[in-house]
């Protein structure tokens, strides 16, 4: 790891200030991806702004039909939250299957979506549930947040404060794990909400996305059989030593079918 200037802040404003004063500042949330990346010297930020003490970024709130989770809430906290388990059990389950127990004790919702790893789990939930990402500057619709591989709609010095997830009627997430890293080779999140069924796919392509062909095939019904006829474009899929594009395309359908069945 290269050396860097370290800033510990307890307010979002202070974090922004520290970022503004840095040549190439980066926010440190749970650090479960960023620190290994820095250890391998694949990232060399001049400054690290540690959000670990920023209380306003932590916590889970359920009000009405919305679950709002602070950006610095850990995966373990989401997984163990009885409120999340009750309101959106699929989200609690998703959080409880990220990484491993020690990683879940550090890794955060905000860190995960800001990094936007193509194989991360949370992006699928944010998109499928039609969540809203609240930052220190604005609110960003989940559909607009993930813009490309490791890219998001966040501006420089913009800090994610929380994510608000509308409570669906039914939802399920199915993940096909990479046997080595345990990231998603393919993950499919299916949610039935008042105006239909939304489906989001992660792992399969360079960036998590809504699976409109699957949504169209389902036509608002949680009918697993309808997925069989969907054509998943193989040429859009990621391909690596763990899974070819063809296999990923196949898995998208299998995971989607199983997620629909799990909603039942």
């Amino acid at each position, binding site marked *: *790891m*290269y*050396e*860097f*200037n*370290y800033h*510990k802040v307890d307010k979002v404003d202070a974090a922004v200030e520290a970022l503004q004063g840095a040549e190439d500042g980066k926010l*440190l949330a749970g*650090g*479960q991806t960023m*620190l*290994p990346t*820095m*250890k*391998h010297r694949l990232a060399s930020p*001049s400054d*690290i702004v*540690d959000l*670990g003490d920023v209380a306003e970024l932590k916590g889970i709130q359920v009000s009405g039909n919305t679950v709002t989770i602070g950006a610095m809430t850990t995966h*373990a906290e989401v997984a*163990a939250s009885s409120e999340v388990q009750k309101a959106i059990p699929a989200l609690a389950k998703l959080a409880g299957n990220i*990484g*491993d*127990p*020690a*990683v879940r*004790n*550090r890794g955060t919702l905000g860190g995960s979506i800001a990094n936007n790893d193509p194989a991360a789990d949370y992006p699928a939930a944010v998109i499928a549930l039609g969540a809203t990402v609240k930052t220190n500057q604005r609110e960003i619709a989940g559909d607009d947040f993930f813009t490309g591989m490791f890219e998001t709609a966040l501006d420089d010095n913009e800090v994610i404060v929380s994510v608000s997830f509308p409570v669906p009627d039914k939802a399920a997430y199915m993940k096909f794990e990479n046997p*080595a*890293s*345990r990231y998603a080779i393919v993950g499919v999140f299916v949610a039935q909400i008042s105006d239909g069924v939304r489906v989001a796919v992660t792992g399969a392509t360079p960036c998590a996305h809504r699976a409109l062909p699957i949504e169209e095939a389902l036509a608002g019904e949680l009918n697993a059989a309808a997925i069989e006829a969907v054509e998943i474009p193989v040429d859009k899929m990621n391909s690596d030593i763990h899974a070819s594009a063809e296999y990923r395309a196949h898995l998208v359908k299998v995971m989607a079918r199983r997620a629909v069945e799990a909603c039942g």
Partner: protein
Amino acid sequence: MANNKINVSLSVNGKAVSGEVESRTLLVQFLREQLGLTGTHIGCDTSQCGACVVHMDGKSVKACTLLAVQADGSEVTTIEGLAQGAELHPMQQAFMDNHGLQCGFCTPGMIMTALDIVNRNGNELDEATVRKELEGNICRCTGYHNIVKSVQAGAKAMGGNS
């Protein structure tokens, strides 16, 4: 670039400790190199193997994926902090009784993870739960068979039903 040292103060195994670290010093380096607590090991660089698991404020964390400065003000427990004098912690004893270790390198991380499993799942653990919960700890020696037995037995013993 920064070259200034940062002071950290924390509690390790119940004792107040402090030291000067670089910003880039990892918690595991601080424990091993500055405190001489070499029971916490480094087996990979990608947060996969779990040889470095310690508890921070009562929760399992990978000490190789945490800056020492992030642990400032926290309470850390390492493998060295478990035994009461000459008496092994029930989980340590369970690993001995069930041959849950061979080369011993992954063992400290396994035991710290095992305690975290018990904290969250209680004293009666089924095999599938233990196997799933050990996802972040790699052992090359044992094939996990006896580690799983050890965790189950240790959990029971911690509940007073050895």
